[in-house]
């Protein structure tokens, strides 16, 4: 299967761009934002201000390009590594940060954001995007649902069940597999013997597309096609975004245990941001100062979000019991009261 590619690593268009330069600039800025946020989080984790963090550096195009194909109101269900896509689709930094600080209020985005909190278990959330999209068919609205997952997740039984349900009920679901070549230490080759992940779509009678995941224009193009098909009753699509995780699995991981430094180096020449910068530059749309201005703005926005998140008071003991059910059950009330009593007496 051929990889769809529009913008090559040198920043040359090799087929027709799906959007003009203004929109490309917007995607570029979004990728800059995503990278800055990602690096900030890794740094904050090292300072002990965030719990474990899963960096997505190298995968910005896959996330930003695909998320850009959505409309507000479309559903999204992604993973711990999909903060860029979530942010692009409207999930505020402050919520992303709160989650990473170990605060469930991070999972509560504003009412007009239809993004589930990131899935930490691998595989289980894909079928949610099938149910969410199925609801559109039953209710007769036109929201689609996009789900993000990794190459490793395709080995879980839940991937199979989700793909099969989506195809059987023709739900408007877009499955975006970011094949970043690793599932923690397991290489893509060790994960499955299928030639491509995109090809797995056949097993469900679903279209599968292989795309250069480091090419934001190609990502936008193939996702737009899938979204259009889904929205017009054409059912689900599997997209394999061929990409690379530049950093460790999480901030506690040491990738040198399982992959050579040369491989990382090789992929760095295919950086998703660099090629768009070159493309904009070829077209007279890039200069250093503009980029710096964007970055400064983003840094300020992130700092503000960090400040807001860090200023949020931690939960009280009472609050811990409050969102298990619409109303705490008598059993939970008793447990809460006993806790308050003991915390008082200890």
């Amino acid at each position: 299967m051929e990889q769809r590619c529009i913008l090559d690593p040198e920043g040359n268009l090799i087929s027709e761009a799906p959007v003009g330069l203004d929109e490309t600039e917007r995607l570029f800025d979004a990728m800059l934002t995503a990278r800055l946020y990602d690096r900030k989080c890794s740094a904050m984790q090292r300072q002990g201000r965030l719990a474990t963090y899963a960096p997505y550096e190298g995968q910005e195009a896959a996330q930003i390009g695909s998320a850009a194909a959505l409309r507000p109101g479309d559903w999204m269900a992604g993973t711990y590594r999909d903060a860029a896509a979530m942010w692009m689709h409207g999930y505020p930094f402050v919520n992303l940060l709160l989650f990473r600080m170990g605060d469930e209020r991070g999972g509560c985005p504003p009412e007009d954001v239809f993004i589930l909190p990131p899935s930490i278990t691998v595989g289980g959330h894909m079928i949610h995007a099938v149910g969410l999209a199925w609801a559109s068919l039953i209710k007769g609205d036109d929201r689609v649902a996009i789900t993000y997952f990794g190459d490793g997740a395709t080995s879980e039984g839940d991937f199979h069940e989700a793909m099969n349900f989506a195809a059987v009920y023709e739900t408007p679901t877009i499955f975006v597999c970011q094949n970043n070549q690793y599932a923690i230490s397991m290489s893509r080759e060790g994960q499955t013997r299928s030639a491509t992940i995109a090809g797995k779509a056949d097993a469900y009678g679903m279209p599968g597309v292989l795309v250069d995941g480091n090419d934001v224009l190609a990502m936008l193009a193939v996702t737009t096609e899938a979204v259009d098909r889904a929205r017009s009753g054409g059912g689900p699509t599997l997209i394999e975004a061929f990409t690379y995780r530049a950093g460790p699995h999480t901030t506690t991981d040491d990738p040198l245990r399982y992959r050579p430094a040369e491989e990382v180096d090789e992929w760095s020449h295919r950086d998703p941001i660099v090629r768009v910068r070159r493309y904009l530059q070829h077209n007279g749309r890039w200069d250093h100062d503009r980029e710096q201005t964007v970055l400064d703005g983003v840094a300020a926005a992130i700092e503000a979000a960090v400040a807001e998140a860090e200023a949020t008071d931690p939960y009280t003991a009472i609050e811990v019991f409050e969102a298990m059910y619409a109303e705490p059950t008598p059993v939970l009330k008793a447990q809460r009261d006993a806790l308050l009593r003991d915390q008082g007496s200890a």
Partner: protein
Amino acid sequence: MPEMTVALALNDALHIALRDDPATVVLGEDVGKAGGVFRVTDGLQQRFGADRVVDTPVAESGIVGAAFGLAIAGLKPIAELQFMGFSYPGYDQVISHVGRIRNRSRSRFTAPMVIRMPYGGGIGAAEHHSESTEAMYAHTPGIKVVVPSRPYDAKGLLLAAIEDPDPVIVLEPIRAYRAIKEDVPAERFAVPIGEASVVREGSDLTMISYGAMMRDTLSAADYLEDDGVSVEVVDLRTLSPLDHETIVASAKSTGRVVVVVESPRTASLASEVAAIVGERALYSLLAPVERVTGHDIVVPLKRAERHHIPDAGRIVAAARRTLEA
């Protein structure tokens, strides 16, 4: 008032739910054309169409997970798992997602959904068809678990489960599906979740049970009453959250407690009831709480099942011990 079996009462509740709320969707293996292996969903697809009463592929995680997505999007899915023994492939969805979404989103997203499953033994069924692992579901945070023992409660609890703003698991005792008939109101009504029922008052001894074991418990009580023992009988009806107050009040008033479950014994609902009674009624106890339970074994097949599932004889023997203590 029409007379109904448990199976019919459940079917009736589903008819009402589908009729009254267009957001209701029934899904599961063989629930549509075939009307369910126990015919609990009989006639629903003919009446409400294949879009609202959906036959699914054989994939329990998929069923629970898809229902979860439907619920978040504002529908009211009622998923059927064909037997409790086939619910385990869907358990990860229950504990990792269904029971968590409200808390992890601080109520921004919720999953008001129902999962129905037949459970329990006593009919000499094939392997995996007699499971009674309700303790595992009762131990799982963020879901509620109800278990009717009779037609009235079956209809009322299922309707309450459907109306509940949170996910509810409805355990349907296989042995009771067609064993008992009673008059059940034709209209909509609800049996409140979280309330046990004192089905018989008495002063010498309390028997606590639920589901299919209620019948054996009541026969044991009858037997003892004939001997002049006054037995109070509590039907828990909801396993999560448990109705501590009713359990404790009855234990305090009689001082003797026999709790009956068919599940394995260790870390069972019987253990929980015994712990609650020991915690809050210790000074009223005239004898140790007796747990009459299945054993910590796989439910034996037909030819030996009777050695596992408690019968009235074992319940009476336990009751006698508490009376003689």
